[in-house]
């Protein structure tokens, strides 16, 4: 049958009579009398329908309206009659010269899927967007093809193979910008139809049905050029289509100006678009905050509500007045111990009321607190003490490696102290262990914490009626939100002891008994709470943070706690930008749709998504997330190089931005989609794998309650041995069935090699998934292959034998389970083997074999 995708159509408003005799048989003129004037809706409908009827060769229809006006509608297969031919037929019917016939072949091209950047959750009808360009921007079929390929490659961003497949009437072409354009059989998601014909004021439709999900077409209209994008019906974002079309025009101008321009040198955005995209990353509401210090803000609350309970810890309760007094005493005692403003004081206490008193005491004396968790291994404590140059650590441990341990009982002072510091002084230093390298201390000023509270106070109606939990370790900055979010808004903070936080039944009992209203959780911890009865709670606000949230997992919560009773908010956050960055209220509808949005930035915070060169990327295109605004930390403690690298000047506004290392994209509505860590994108057998995608598919299985997916290599330095291991907690069924069903949905290369059923997923002290504690899916680990005898290979041998695992050049000593004991052994083995001496300190500074080798080389050269 005839294909609308192969046809184009032209409508001409007639000024005089038509000459049907100009047509050659068998083509005839169909005459339709429309019972309406030319401006009535019926006339418009009839024109539109007539322009959309496919034909095998050529059809000519005359529409006569009641007001004497008439339209000539011509529809032709583009292979039978090209744009020039179509115009010639129209002219002939109106009394011009004879009709030329210019048949050519139109090749059918398989249509591909909707490109990621154009995808939307909600389906739309087919539609189009038209841009009017200057006549001088006409270009050629080739310049448009090049511009389209460049724009597509740049939009595909991290996923781009470096070329784009474009569908044309002559077949699909694989276009490599700056390289060849070759015919291909690949399906095309994007098509290009170029005609260099002037249709004047007449209505031209380059295609009747949209051949490709996105079909671009060009033609002349008087002294302008029309660039049009028709999109198919489906889950396509019209806003994204418009944006891409504008960017295509901008890229084309650059291609015409410099045909040799490299794809990567092209500016995707002009100044106006840059401003628009930058604006997109800013929240609608402004932050109203008065910079102050935490201690000052707390004193103000305590003065307002002195008798309100501030902290509950089991049987112990402290009012705001009591908390104020006790922390004054701690501040005084710390001063007596020699702590001065600007110092850093270690705090290593279990979650107790005492912890809260101590943290407040530290900030009152004008120092910054450096929290560590008593559960941390001694090596990690020692590392923190050394890196933060801690002289004093408040702890109930008998001793603290590398610093003086002081029991809270011994902090006594008589002289009241009050800090004269500024809101810009550091309030705390929290260590983050990134996916690579040693933990780094993030220095966060007082004003950031105040801004965080001010950014959320009104929106979430945080106030003295609220009861919060202190669920998280003070070494995890989610606790910053819990402690100060509560105490600076006058709420009551309920301490959740460690053992309660690990037992969902007891935790639930605590939530119920204390009538907790504001609950902050990692999704992993929350999923354990969902496994127990949770219907008798007073929670009115759940805040998720710390991990990506799978919104579908919230349905059982919504079943019991409807949105009208309890608001559920997902916050994406980074320690370097003060706990949270974005916020998204999750609705049941979002949970059903499986939205990946983490919402817009908090008031005062803003987002950019940039390419590897730091240029702003349009919405829909994945790139690195940069965060600017009120939450940006002062930097990394004593790591100027790294600070300079990760904290740079804001490209648009005053201030600095933090380079998150996270992959994300902005949606056209300004919400952020978080796509994981840039450096954790894994490849298996050459395919880029999204572990989250695999996890999402597993979670859709009704048998699966929670899931985790990791990539492991049997041979860590051999990418070929990579395999995907999945872990699931089952509601019913078995792991074999889960894998089988996943295999029906996922492409081959994404199907987990193994699916292991567990009773529960292991969590870290921070309540996040503890990947290191996931058991091996199958027993035994292949033994390390023999290595050569250069320094690196011999080091690998030594490290491997000491640590008991194969060691790659870039494996981190500590992440492989290394500690000071192993470090000493490695030093001994190296000496035995006649290798250069390696001091413990150097191993801490250079925890990979590659960095050790280069450090030793420098040392060798230096004499």
């Amino acid at each position, binding site marked *: 049958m005839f294909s609308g995708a192969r046809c184009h159509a032209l409508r001409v408003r007639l000024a005089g009579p038509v000459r049907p005799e100009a047509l050659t048989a068998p083509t005839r003129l169909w005459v*339709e009398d*429309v019972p309406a004037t030319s401006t009535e809706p019926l006339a418009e409908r009839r024109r539109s*329908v007539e322009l959309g009827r496919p034909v095998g060769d050529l*059809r000519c229809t005359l529409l006569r309206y009641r007001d004497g006006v008439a339209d000539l509608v011509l529809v032709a297969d583009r292979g039978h009659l090209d744009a020039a031919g179509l115009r010639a037929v129209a002219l002939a019917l109106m009394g011009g010269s004879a009709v030329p016939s210019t048949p050519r072949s139109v090749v059918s091209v398989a249509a591909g899927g909707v490109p990621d950047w154009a995808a939307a959750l909600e389906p739309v009808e087919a539609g189009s967007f038209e841009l009017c360009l200057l006549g001088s921007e006409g270009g050629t079929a080739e310049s448009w093809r090049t511009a389209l390929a460049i724009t597509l490659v740049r939009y595909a961003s991290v996923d781009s193979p470096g070329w784009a497949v474009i569908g044309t009437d002559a077949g699909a072409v694989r276009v490599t910008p700056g390289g060849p354009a070759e015919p291909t059989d690949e399906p095309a998601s994007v098509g290009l139809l170029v005609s260099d014909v002037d249709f004047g004021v007449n209505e031209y439709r380059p295609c009747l049905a949209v051949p490709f999900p996105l079909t671009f077409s060009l033609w002349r209209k008087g002294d302008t050029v029309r660039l049009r994008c028709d999109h198919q019906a489906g889950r396509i974002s019209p806003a994204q289509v418009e944006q891409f079309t504008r960017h295509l025009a901008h890229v084309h101008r650059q291609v015409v100006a410099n045909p040799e321009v490299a794809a990567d040198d092209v500016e995707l955005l002009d100044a106006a678009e840059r401003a628009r995209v930058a604006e997109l990353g800013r929240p609608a509401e402004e932050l109203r905050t008065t910079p102050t210090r935490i201690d000052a803000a707390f004193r103000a609350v305590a003065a307002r509500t002195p008798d309100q309970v501030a902290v509950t810890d089991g049987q112990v309760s402290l009012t705001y007045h009591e908390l104020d007094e006790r922390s004054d005493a701690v501040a005084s005692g710390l001063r007596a111990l020699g702590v001065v403003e600007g110092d850093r004081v270690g705090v290593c206490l279990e979650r107790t009321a005492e912890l809260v008193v101590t943290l407040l005491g530290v900030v009152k004396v004008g120092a910054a607190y450096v929290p560590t968790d008593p559960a941390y291994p001694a090596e990690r404590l020692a590392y923190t003490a050394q890196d933060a140059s801690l002289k004093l650590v408040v702890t109930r441990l008998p001793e603290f490696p590398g610093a003086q341990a002081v029991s809270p009982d011994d902090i006594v002072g008589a002289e009241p102290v009050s800090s004269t510091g500024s809101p810009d002084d550091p309030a705390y230093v929290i260590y983050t262990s990134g996916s690579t390298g040693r933990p780094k201390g993030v220095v966060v000023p007082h004003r950031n914490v105040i801004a965080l509270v001010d950014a959320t106070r009104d929106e979430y109606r945080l106030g003295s009626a609220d009861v919060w939990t202190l669920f998280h370790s003070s070494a995890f900055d989610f606790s910053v939100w819990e402690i100060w979010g509560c105490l600076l808004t006058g709420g009551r903070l309920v301490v959740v002891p460690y053992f309660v936080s690990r037992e969902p039944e007891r935790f639930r009992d605590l939530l119920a008994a204390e009538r907790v209203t504001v609950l902050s959780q990692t999704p992993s911890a929350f999923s354990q709470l969902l496994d127990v009865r949770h219907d008798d709670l007073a929670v009115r606000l759940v805040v998720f943070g710390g991990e990506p949230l799978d919104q579908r997992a919230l349905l059982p919560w919504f079943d019991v706690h409807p949105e009208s009773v309890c608001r559920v908010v997902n916050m994406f956050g980074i320690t370097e930008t003060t706990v949270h960055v974005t916020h998204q209220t999750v609705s049941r509808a979002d949970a059903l749709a499986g939205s990946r949005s983490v919402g817009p930035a908090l008031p005062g915070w803003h987002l950019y998504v940039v390419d590897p060169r730091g240029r702003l990327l349009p919405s829909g295109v994945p790139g690195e997330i940069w965060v600017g605004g009120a939450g940006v930390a002062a930097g990394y403690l004593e790591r100027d190089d790294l600070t300079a690298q990760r904290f740079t000047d804001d490209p648009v506004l005053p201030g600095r931005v933090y380079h998150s290392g996270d992959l994300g994209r902005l949606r056209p509505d300004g919400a952020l989609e978080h796509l994981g860590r840039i450096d954790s994108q894994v490849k298996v057998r050459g395919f880029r794998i999204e572990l989250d995608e695999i996890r999402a598919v597993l979670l859709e299985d009704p048998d699966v309650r929670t899931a985790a997916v990791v990539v492991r290599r049997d041979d860590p330095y051999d990418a070929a041995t990579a395999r995907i291991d999945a872990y699931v907690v089952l509601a019913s069924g078995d792991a074999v069935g889960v894998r089988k069903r996943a295999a029906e949905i996922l492409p081959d290369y994404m199907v987990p090699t193994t699916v292991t059923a567990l009773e529960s997923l292991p969590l870290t002290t921070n309540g996040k998934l503890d990947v290191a504690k996931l058991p091996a899916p199958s027993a035994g680990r292949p033994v390390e292959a023999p290595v050569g005898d250069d320094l690196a290979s011999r080091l690998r041998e030594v490290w491997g034998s000491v640590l008991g695992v194969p060691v790659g050049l870039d494996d981190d000593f500590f992440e492989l389970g290394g500690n000071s004991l192993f470090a000493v052994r490695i030093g001994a083995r190296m000496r035995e083997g006649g290798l250069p001496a390696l001091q413990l300190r150097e191993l801490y500074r250079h925890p990979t074999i590659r960095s050790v080798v280069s450090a030793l080389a420098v040392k060798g050269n230096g004499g």
Partner: protein
Amino acid sequence: MRLTGKVVVITGAARGIGRASAVACAAEGADLVLLDVCADLPGVPYPLGSAGQLEHTAQLCRDRGASVLTAKADVRDTTSVRDAVALAAERYGRIDAVVNNAGIAAPSGKRVHEITEDEWSLMLDVDLTGAWRLIREVGRMMSDQRSGSIVNIASTAGLVGYRHFAGYVAAKHGLVGLTKAAALDYAPMKVRVNAVCPGNVRDTAEAEGRMLREIARALDVPADEHVAAFTQSQPMNRLVEPDDVAGAVVFLASDDSAQVTGSVLTVDGGFTAH
């Protein structure tokens, strides 16, 4: 409007259910190809649709904004059906729905062994084979389009028996069977085939229908008595209006029924619910 831009072909469009369906489709934005035999057939004891009646149906549709083509077509004649479909394709480029409505109620009124060879053949040729001929012509086109809806106007006589109507009952049962078989054949091509089974439809002035009158005459019963009997046999206690049937036709032709195929939709006031 549920049929904007869709092209609907209707047989037996000169009057009755055909006319009502055409007008209803036009009101929903469809463009129409209206076919009728426009002649009396030897062996059929009553006058069939005329060219004038067909033109009147077309005008009613045009008044509602439709683009309309009419053609004289006899569903007993393959060439005639083929030409009509070719004309529709040339003018409109596609066919979205077909309503197989052409049918005759008589010659009837006899017991099975009294029916002649010619009477039997004529009844099946029009009421069953006629529908098959049009499906044969549009089946390939709709398959290529990967869309289309075929609506066969059967009858409650396609579901239950009536005394002295063996030919008609057999043909309409056959049409219901053809509906189900064709639905299976075309389902992979996204082409739907459904049947509508009207009960006793009133002969209205607007639709110029005369089926009920002819049934009564075939049974040799005074028309008034017959109407009363049929009205009582339908639990809703009234006769079916041509527009009631047209409503079912519009539903089945439109995308509202996107997953409805092989189904039999009765419009009989509850008659077959007994």
